[in-house]
């Protein structure tokens, strides 16, 4: 039978100042680790939730984003005629032909410029995105120089509040509404009439087509047909996949940067745990001798000290995660390098991040405690008892 866990717990409590310092070091590392994962998850969640599972995005083949894409009107007509596209309540096919451009707008407060996505929409755009709700004002009238702004844009950029004016594409545009799109990337966009915007930016082609499938199961067949049609040079993706791909470059960058930093920090925390555990072994030499003398095996001693190190790690992990969970209250905005547009998103704490962070903290505890635990278990009983 092993030495009771209460022995390890009470020893940690007895040396509470050392325990606190070690836990704080580990908590800091877990905080950075968890925050990095939360940042990446938040970014991906924002972009993936931007898409509906039964929507399909069509862009020009080889384009990484809507900004780089171009679909001619004739090609758009061919795609509109596909039988897999759902029919709306008005009897027309639920497809939106959209145009996307980037403009530069100054931020409120700092006056620093940043890119904002301008999306030209058509009559089906809103219906295809049920997560988008108009929260203030009204929709832009077709054929007018009216626009609506996502709530995140309206908060952070000059001239994007309701009733305010923006000048781009050699025209002045009036903000007539504010829309809310939950945690999706549309919050960081400005929408207007596609035909008006295409004229203003002198763009003869659409950027993307978005349509709803009447049956999601028909997607692969449709994709094969569209991508194999010699008249079309397009690529079709389900909307969540499309936005996930959009986040990949940035998510990978964040992940590599965060994990590299965390690994460097973790070396310090592991050394801290090791010093703590070496001190614990040195202070309890006679206890080790006594436990061995009364019949506890070497393995029991090793498990007792490893448990103590793992408890240190676990405490560090829980503390770090608790601190990192407050990051969910923060919304940050940054450049999405895939689309070169400003994207606002929040840190997102997922069950996977909790498991990975606690696992990471346990690994740190184990690594820091292993050598001291082996040393404790290998002590000669006579030498250990003499240590008293």
């Amino acid at each position, binding site marked *: *039978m*092993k*030495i*009771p866990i*209460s*022995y390890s717990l*009470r*020893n940690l*409590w*007895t040396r509470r100042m050392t325990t606190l310092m070690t836990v704080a070091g580990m908590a800091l590392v877990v905080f950075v680790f968890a925050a990095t994962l939360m940042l990446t998850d938040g970014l991906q969640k924002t972009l993936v939730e931007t898409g509906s599972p039964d929507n399909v995005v069509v862009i020009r083949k080889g384009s990484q984003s809507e900004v780089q894409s171009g679909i001619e009107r004739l090609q758009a007509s061919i795609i509109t005629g596909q039988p897999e596209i759902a029919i709306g309540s008005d009897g027309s096919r639920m497809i939106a032909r959209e145009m996307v451009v980037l403009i530069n707008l100054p931020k409120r407060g700092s006056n620093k410029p940043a890119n904002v996505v301008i999306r030209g929409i058509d009559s089906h755009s809103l219906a295809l995105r049920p997560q988008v709700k108009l929260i203030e004002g009204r929709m832009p009238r077709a054929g007018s120089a009216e626009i609506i702004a996502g709530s995140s844009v309206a908060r952070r950029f000059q001239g994007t509040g309701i009733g305010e004016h923006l000048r781009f594409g050699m025209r002045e545009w009036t903000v007539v509404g504010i829309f809310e799109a939950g945690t999706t990337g549309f919050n960081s966009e400005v929408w207007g009439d596609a035909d008006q915007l295409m004229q203003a930016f002198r763009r003869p082609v659409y950027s993307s087509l978005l349509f709803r499938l009447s049956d999601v199961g028909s997607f692969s067949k449709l994709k094969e047909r569209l991508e194999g049609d010699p008249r079309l040079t397009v690529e079709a993706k389900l909307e969540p996949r499309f936005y996930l791909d959009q986040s990949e470059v940035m998510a990978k960058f964040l992940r590599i940067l965060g994990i590299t930093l965390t690994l460097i920090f973790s070396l310090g925390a592991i050394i801290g745990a090791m010093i703590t555990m070496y001190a614990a072994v040195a202070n309890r030499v*006679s*206890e080790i*001798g*006594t*436990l*061995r*003398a*009364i*019949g*506890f*095996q*070497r393995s029991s001693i090793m498990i007792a000290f490893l448990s103590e190190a793992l408890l240190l790690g676990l405490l560090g992990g829980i503390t770090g995660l608790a601190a990192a969970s407050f990051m969910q209250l923060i919304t940050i905005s940054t450049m999405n390098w895939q689309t070169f547009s400003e994207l606002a998103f929040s840190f997102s704490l997922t069950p996977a991040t909790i498991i990975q962070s606690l696992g990471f903290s346990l690994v740190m505890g184990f690594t820091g405690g292993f050598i001291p635990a082996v040393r404790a278990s290998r002590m000669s*009983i*006579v030498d250990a*008892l003499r240590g*008293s």
Partner: protein
Amino acid sequence: MSEREIAVRMSGVCKSYQRGSQNVPVLEDINFEIASGEFLALMGPSGSGKSTLLNLLAGIDKADSGIITVGNCNITSLDDSELADWRAANVGFIFQFYNLIPVLTAFENIELPLLLTGLTRRERREHVLAALEVVSLTDRMDHRPSQLSGGQQQRVAIARAIITDPAILVADEPTGDLDRVSAGEIMDLMDHMVSDFGKTIIMVTHDPRAAEKAHVVRHLEKGILMES
């Protein structure tokens, strides 16, 4: 002395330590027997090998040569892991500085050796309460060692030593850290272990008053056991 009555037998036991390149002999050709239920005191000057002899027959150190038999078990043939199991079942330890675990209560310290048995929690509790009764410390069972006097700590250590009902008790200077009154109480308690519970005790001591309680006193001089 009949074969059945022998608790410990040492035959031709030698032990030396390596100090740098030098081999320092500590015990030389030790031969002796301890009868079951006997209280033996080992005396001798510092460095004479008393504690080493005690460590060898308690199975916490290994002899260079010779045979040590405790009960029917030749402990010199046991490996490290087997020795640990053997100690758990057959030896009770009483140390000069009590060697209680400071973060555990008196109850938990006494319970420790029982964790190595198959007893249930309830059975363990019953055993510990009985041992506390024997050492008259039932009212102190929830106290930590730091909340007990030296004499009380040594009584807890004795309760821990007898909790698994071992064949032999080994005591290394059990009164060495106690005042005269407490030392007297501890020696009475050890005497009680022999007379009422039939324990075999091997005690190392410098204290002639403590040795008076023993049935047999043997002297060690420079690693050689003197005739009694």
